[in-house]
């Protein structure tokens, strides 16, 4: 994790945030070209995808199973689970290990891991006001963090190029860009 980059100036901003509630760290990742995020505290580990073994007759959103140090983990394709457009995974795809229901560890297959944002509760807008009435039940809210809120760029980035992608190519880095915060419990239910 040598290339994790702590953004300078984070300490200064904390003062301004005090009146907006405690800061929560969110891991942002890309799905079908859109940035999504989930609380970092729920993500146990980020894996490069090992070979997946598909399970016949499993629900469509199940990509397959992998072994993580001897433990079987069911991997769920978040694109499919959220009914987004499907595409072939790229080299940048990652699996986020999260704790599912009943203590089961699940893998969430995402296109790319982008960054970690620190957000106060006050910065999270209820999805209903932002997206109209058609709110998917698995969306906890949205945020417009901008580059300033980024605590760590490209947590798993392989180097400068990845960092650049994280800050440049992804919408939320630009001021006004929107990140969709997922309610993981609803996603996994």
């Amino acid at each position, binding site marked *: 994790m040598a290339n994790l980059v702590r953004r300078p100036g984070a300490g200064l901003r904390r003062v301004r945030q005090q009146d907006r509630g405690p800061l929560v760290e969110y891991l942002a990742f890309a799905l079908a070209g859109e940035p999504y995020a989930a609380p970092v505290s729920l993500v146990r580990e980020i894996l490069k995808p090992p070979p997946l073994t598909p399970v016949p*007759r499993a629900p469509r959103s199940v990509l397959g199973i992998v072994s993580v140090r001897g433990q079987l*983990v069911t991997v769920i394709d978040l694109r499919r689970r959220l009914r987004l457009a499907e595409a072939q995974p790229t080299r940048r795809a990652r699996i986020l290990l999260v704790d599912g229901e009943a203590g089961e560890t699940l893998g969430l297959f995402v296109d790319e891991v982008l960054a970690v944002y620190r957000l106060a509760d006050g910065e999270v807008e209820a999805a209903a006001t932002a997206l109209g009435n058609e709110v998917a039940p698995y969306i906890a809210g949205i945020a417009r963090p901008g580059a300033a809120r980024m605590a760590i760029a490209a947590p798993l980035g392989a180097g400068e190029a990845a960092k650049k992608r994280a800050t440049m190519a992804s919408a939320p880095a630009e001021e006004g860009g929107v990140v969709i915060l997922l309610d993981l419990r609803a996603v996994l239910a």
Partner: protein
Amino acid sequence: MADAQDRAREEFFSEAQEIVEGLGRDLLGLDEGQRTGRVDAELVNDLFRAVHTLKGLAGLFGANRMSTLSHELEGLLDDMRLGRVELTPTVLDLLFRSAELYDRILQNEKEGRDQAMPEVDDLIRELHRGKGGAPPPSPIGHYELDPGLLAVLTEYEEHRLRTNIAQGLTLFRLRVQFQLATIDQALDDLKAAAKPHGEIITYLPTGAGADADSIELDILMACKLTGAELEVALALNGVAVEEVARRPVAAVSSSPVPFDRGATAEGAAGTRVRDGSEARRREALDVASLLPPQMVQREAGGAGPKVPLDVASIRSVAQTVRVDIQKLDRLMNIVGELAIVKSSLTRLSDRLRAAHISRELSSDLHRLQRTFDRHLESMQKGILEVRMVPLGQVFDKLARVVRQISRDADKHVNLVITGAETEVDKLIVEELSDPLMHMMRNAIDHGIESRSAREAVGKPAMGTIALNAFQKGNHVVIEIEDDGGGIDTDRLLDAAVRRGVLAADEARTSSRREVLNLVFIPGMTTKSDVSELSGRGVGMDVVKTNISKLGGVIDLGSERGIGTKVTITLPITLAIISALLVDVAGRTFALPLANVQEAIVLEPDAVRRIDDREVVTLRGTTLPLCFLGQLFELDGSAVVGASPGGAGAGHAVTKRNGKRFVVVVSVGSRKLGLVVDTLIGEQDVVIKALGASLKSVRGFAGATELGDQRIGLVLDAPALLEELSTSPRDARQASEARDG
């Protein structure tokens, strides 16, 4: 800190549970004894000790209810030991109820529930009433016994003496010289030699000894042999056997006990203090420290409920180690990883040999690898053995349930158990207890007829339920067979048609087996009217599901008027299995070898179609086929728009030109041919369960690591058999439900 406390609590529960289970076992022995009229005194002692230990444990952990119950129960058992209370069916009932309540109390304590248990309070009151009572008149006065000896008998010994006399045994006095250095061993040997012939009631040092290093004991023994025979039987040098003479009847005084507690004085025997505490007795009698521990312990028990925990019981517990089954699972995982290392090692060794680099090096590696294999194998076996427990653990519980239910239902039932020593994986035993309990209940409630009905058809009034277990290859078979009324298939069919489970024309063509299997359909069994007419009860579908989860199958046979037999076939262990690896559409699957009978080449021309299903003829019998690629809708064989087993199937058979194989799997008496592309080979695999999110996916028993990060799914042969033996119509419905 809290952790240590939790662990201690855990220990408490598992130890208490173990003791309560033992209690149940002893009670059954007592029940048996009570019926045949010969109660084993040791059993009563064991019970007393067990309850005593429970009391100690309960006190330690503040389980008050348990501690009170134990205290009362201990009192009752003590009275029984001493002959103050006779073992009557009523007393036995109290004991059985106590054992059952212990179970429930433990359950409540474990779940941290503190609800009122009025039944416990009731029982405690009853126990309290049941205690005490006058001892039967003593026949001891009929014998020419030294009053000095009688005066030092403990109450327990007195009771044993009475009992033995009542049984018509002859009393003997033995005088034996022992070397002080070896007295422990020698006394044990003597007891062992005496045990088959009778009982040693007490022994006392006579005070006379040949020299300072030896001691003479005066032993009072009851025995069924004559004096001469006893001398031979004991085969001990220097033992003097003397029969205790009976008094002429006229000389017997009317006072039943010629020695009462009041008359006891230190001077009477000069050596022992009656009614003294253990410590005092030791003091008064130097030789007590020389007595073997069993003896001391027996006396300690006799001194009543005040004594601390038995020395012997602590020792026996320390002999074994309780292990959390999950720790064994983890060990098994490591063995699995090692197995992967092993196969890599084999590949490396093969490569080295093929490369002809160094003959010496390669043969050294080969040897090393062979040694590694061998040790790994014995390690695997060792861990599996540790996990094995006898089925008796659950059978004992069943016996108690049978006693209870047959009482409630007012039916006389004789449970005959064979094969309780058959061993299975601990996890399986745990999971078995509910289904077995259920089937027992069914057999008594619905299987065995009422007494009058049985007599009317000339059956013995007492019904019989046989519970048999035996090992068969890699499986354990458990049979539950009753001689009751059997299942009324006609009425079962009627009910099925009424309920719409079966169409009327299907009902006519159904085989007997298919009809019997109707009891496993959920809707059929939960309705009370069905269970009444069918004579078989609620929840057989649950039983079946539980058994299937363990990788087992359940089979039902029933003959009207003769009885019903349920056969359960289970794998011995779940953790590691030999498997056949096969390839289907480029994916590797593992098939437990236990289910595999043989593999044959598929002759596409030989495939016929019967009842919407592909079959081949194998040595004269019809073998239904299952095209795995098609069933799992894998690349190249997915059937679009056609129902499984429909027109697409014939297409799939002829589509490929490559040779394919049929792996014949069998579970119980049923067989199925699984069509696969390639046979890869045999391998020992560690089965790991699929995650909870894949629970609803049918057909897989789990998955296993194949090395180089790949995972193979393990096929669940029993489930596949089950799935494919339901009628095609059901299968279609099931698949529609799945897709929808």
